[in-house]
């Protein structure tokens, strides 16, 4: 089944129409989408740089990760709400946009990875897990979020 009818329906929603017809709404929502990007970036990077052993080596990893995860979750909430709003205003464009599908294909594993594997690795007893696993986890995390952010920016350039 094609997803196109669903995308068409999204574009017809009241929110989508209001944003599309307003001069200000799209850029303002976009700005908050970007601010959440910074928050997510910071929360992800602090932990990933620690997993790589590049910063805060003397601080307990589990503590750091638990605190940062809250800000990651908060940032994600803002990101998803503003993202859905932006999407609804141009859903059909997104449907035909390669960057959009690239972003979504990276976003789902990025979120799942952050709240499963990465969370477990960060919470594990540091002396019992080989550093290689921590580094690998950090690299996967950085790579996934990089694709999400870069292809997200690209949605605006293409189509």
């Amino acid at each position, binding site marked *: 089944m094609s997803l196109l009818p669903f995308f068409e329906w999204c574009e017809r929603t009241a929110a989508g129409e209001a944003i599309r017809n307003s001069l200000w709404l799209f850029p303002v929502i976009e700005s908050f989408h970007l601010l959440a990007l910074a928050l997510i970036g910071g929360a992800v*990077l602090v932990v990933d740089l620690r997993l790589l052993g590049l910063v805060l080596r003397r*601080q307990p990893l589990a503590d750091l990760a638990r605190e940062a995860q809250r800000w990651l979750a908060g940032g994600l909430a803002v990101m998803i709400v503003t993202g859905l709003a932006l999407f609804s205003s141009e859903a059909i464009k997104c449907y035909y946009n390669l960057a959009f599908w690239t972003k979504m294909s990276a976003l789902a594993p990025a979120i799942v990875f952050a709240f499963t594997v990465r969370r477990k690795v960060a919470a594990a007893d540091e002396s019992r897990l080989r550093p290689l696993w921590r580094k690998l986890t950090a690299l996967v995390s950085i790579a996934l979020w990089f694709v999400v952010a*870069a292809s997200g920016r690209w949605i605006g350039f293409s189509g």
Partner: protein
Amino acid sequence: MSLLGFCQWLEKTPWSIALHESLWVYPIVESVHVLTLCWFLGLAVMVDLRLVGLALRRVPVSQVAGQLGPWMVAGFAVMAASGALLFYAIPVRTYLNIFFRIKVGMLALAGVNAWVFQKTVYRRVAKWDLDAAPPRGARLAAWVSLALWVCIVVAGRMIAYNWFDPPGVH
């Protein structure tokens, strides 16, 4: 030469035209600029959140600021360089853009705020390094920083929209 005159001269340099008209390089530079939001600003936000007592409360402030500092400086360098290139690609229109002017003003204020923080309350960080909620001066500097960066990001995003461009400028 006036600033506008300088921008008009800049706009006619071959590299500026090449960058402006490039199919790939300009979007790539812009993507680099946006992605440094995660890198520089994300880390700066984490430091500010530590200073206001909202994140990483059990990590000494000097550790958060000192260890993330070099990464922030590197990120800022990339951000400033890519930002300069974006300006170079479209100098006159950007110079005349009200949001660009607001952004530059806010950036200067953020710089002053960071400098004052370094020279005053952060000098005595040894006294409050472990406090979950740092002294009022530090919290104030962090809140000011967060507020300014929100304005900088919003204004920065608005530069791309042309509602306030004088007629004939593009």
